[in-house]
């Protein structure tokens, strides 16, 4: 069953299209990474998911119900960690969390809050005023607020920005727990390694349009232009680069210090073929590994491609018609 479905979701601010015909489908229990450059329309999309902004056209459904600003029953099931969180600074952390727990009518709120406070190591500061909190502490407090009512859907916008490495580990652990509990996660982040670690599927948005959406493995395969296999040899001969280049499935061979990189056509995993070929030539490999294209590389590639497409589109638009 789908947790979130958007249908031709569009949001215009004047003549500017912030989101342009977005179609998303996120399954229940899925962890979804939402990527895009600044101004791509991520936050606008999330705001429409939450009913904060009304779509110019198109619809948003959560658990099959159309989202509006007064979709109380739906919003009670959602937890949100915004990029820039603000707090009632004259309240203590505990008062603040309990206020939201009451607002969401959270069951066993005190017990759950205590557990969350412990998990992010804020228990000792629970009765301190929020105004005395550091940025990182506030970020963690935002997580407690978002999770205190055990939401079915967790929307996280830049969840780990402002956290120290230790905090990131705590938060990642929280998210893993939530995922294990069955919650659906939507993570919008610039820290791509974080998305890579916590999401099953990502969608990349640019200029309001979803330009790519798939599992991380598939994207790496699609965007990576083949597969790269790395070697280190005990008895390397000078002709090794030329011989490897002559293999039919090899596209490119390069060497950096003692590491040789072979780019294959990616049609299949060629490590076995290459292994036999090395043995035939009596080369002794010390190490052979497959290189995975990172999400950063994918993201940059996609973004560059998208930028080029956009520039081309603009240039086409600029050409006066005859």
């Amino acid at each position: 069953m789908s947790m979130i479905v958007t249908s031709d979701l569009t949001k215009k601010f004047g003549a500017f299209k912030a989101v342009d015909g977005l179609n998303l489908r996120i399954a229940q229990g899925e962890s979804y990474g939402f990527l895009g450059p600044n101004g791509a329309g991520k936050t606008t999309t999330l705001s429409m998911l939450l009913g904060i902004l009304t779509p110019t056209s198109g619809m948003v459904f959560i658990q099959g119900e159309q989202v509006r600003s007064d979709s109380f029953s739906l919003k009670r099931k959602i937890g949100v960690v915004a990029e820039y969180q603000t707090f009632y600074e004259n309240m203590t952390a505990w008062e603040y969390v309990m206020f939201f727990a009451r607002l969401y009518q959270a069951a066993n709120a005190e017990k759950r809050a205590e557990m969350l406070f412990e998990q992010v190591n804020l228990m000792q500061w629970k009765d301190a005023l929020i105004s005395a909190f550091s940025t990182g502490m506030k970020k963690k407090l935002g997580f407690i607020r978002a999770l205190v009512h055990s939401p079915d859907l967790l929307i996280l916008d830049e969840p780990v920005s402002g956290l120290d490495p230790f905090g990131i580990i705590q938060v990642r652990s929280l998210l893993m727990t939530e995922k294990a509990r069955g919650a659906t996660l939507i993570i919008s982040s610039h820290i791509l390694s974080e998305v890579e670690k916590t999401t099953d599927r990502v969608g990349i948005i640019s200029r309001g349009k979803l330009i790519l959406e798939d599992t991380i493995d598939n994207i790496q395969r699609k965007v990576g232009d083949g597969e790269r296999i790395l070697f280190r040899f005990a008895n390397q001969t000078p002709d090794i680069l030329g011989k490897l280049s002559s293999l039919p499935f090899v596209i490119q061979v390069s060497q950096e210090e003692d590491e040789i990189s072979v780019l294959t056509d990616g049609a299949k995993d060629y490590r076995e073929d290459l292994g036999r070929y090395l043995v035939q030539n009596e080369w002794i490999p010390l190490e052979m590994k497959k290189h995975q294209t990172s999400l950063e590389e994918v993201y940059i590639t996609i973004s560059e491609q998208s930028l080029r497409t956009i520039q081309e589109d603009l240039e086409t638009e600029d050409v006066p018609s005859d």
Partner: protein
Amino acid sequence: MIARMDIRPAWMRRVFLLIIVIVIMAVAAYSVAAQEELTFVYGTNHFNGAVFSSAFVPDSVDTFYLISDHISIVAGRLTRVYYWPLTNELKPDWDEANIVVEGELEILENDRIIQTIALTDYVIQYDARDRFGTTELFLGDAAVVARQNFEDLQKQYREDLAAYFQELNNYRQAFQAALAELQAGNITEDELPEPPEAQEDLSLFSTDLLMGFPVNLPDGNYTVQLRLPDGSIQPNSRKRLVVFSPIQEGIGYNVITEERWTVPEESKEANQIIYSLSGKKMYLEPFYQIQFNELFYTRLNNPQDTQARRDRNVWIPFEYVKDVMLEVNSAGSSKQIAMENYFVRQLTGSALGYEIMIHNPGSDRDVTFSGFAIDVDSPEMHIEVVDSGGNLLQYSQREIRVLNTSRSIWVYVLSGLPLLGGVAAVLMRRRSVDSGNLNGQKG
């Protein structure tokens, strides 16, 4: 930001538009008022609950008011109307033009003529010494006779006055001569001539013999129009007429203290409390009063009024109460106080002020007022007026309380109490938050 800048001018434009509309309306209203030609208006000589008053109903007013079951006079006139900026009202220039419009006044109810009233002579007369008790309206032939009688009285008064002055003149001459005789020792003081008796003023007032339509209607909403002798309706003569009744009658009091008898207070409402000081003496002068709706009553006297309110009432005094007793209840005891006539004597010299004394019936002084003397000797007293048969006069109950003025400074002290509450609340809050911090550090 752009959206906000769009909104502001639109909002301001609307305000400016509103102001311009109001200015145009004011100027239009003013220009309508500045008329030069003769205008048809109504004038009323109406019963106001106690006596007769007059009111002016200009063209711009579509409704006027009369009290039910009393004859009031409505007259159609042609006059010049001018705008009076001080009160923002239209006024008739009766001296310039006051032309009676002949015809018949038709009274309509639900668009059906229920009465046609002919133009009638009328005269209003009263004794200036007691206007409340003596005002009288004469109609038709009686009005002619009443006016004639008044003129006869005036003539008689003038003749008597002339005779008196002649006698006075004779007396002065005789007195001078007698004085010379007295100085010469030819006569004694007892033989000096007596002055003539002073002529009593003519206190009767009378209007001229006027013409109008006597209207006497029960409660209700009517329409009036003036039908001219040629059968047509006088333009602008069709107006709404609201006829209303009093709400209730009651007793009011003039409350007088010896030290400040020139500035008596009035107590017209039964729920008013008379506050005084311990040990003081006060006098209560009761009067009959009648209650009307404020809007109706104010517009009865000035149909152009815009301030009066429909949800308020007014009490109108119309006669002093005589031959009653005041029952005073305080601290479980009850006593009755008889009404007395009082005379106020002005004190001169170092004791400058007033003294209120019981009037001596044999004295040549007039009674200043009639009322009840009360010694304020209990923190809380309840009074009411009963007639000779012991029956309570409706709406005469009042409460008298002694104000503890010496303790008034303490109300300031009381007003500071919330600050203590505030300090306590802030301290409690700080303690709860601080202890949290301490707990945190321990943890």
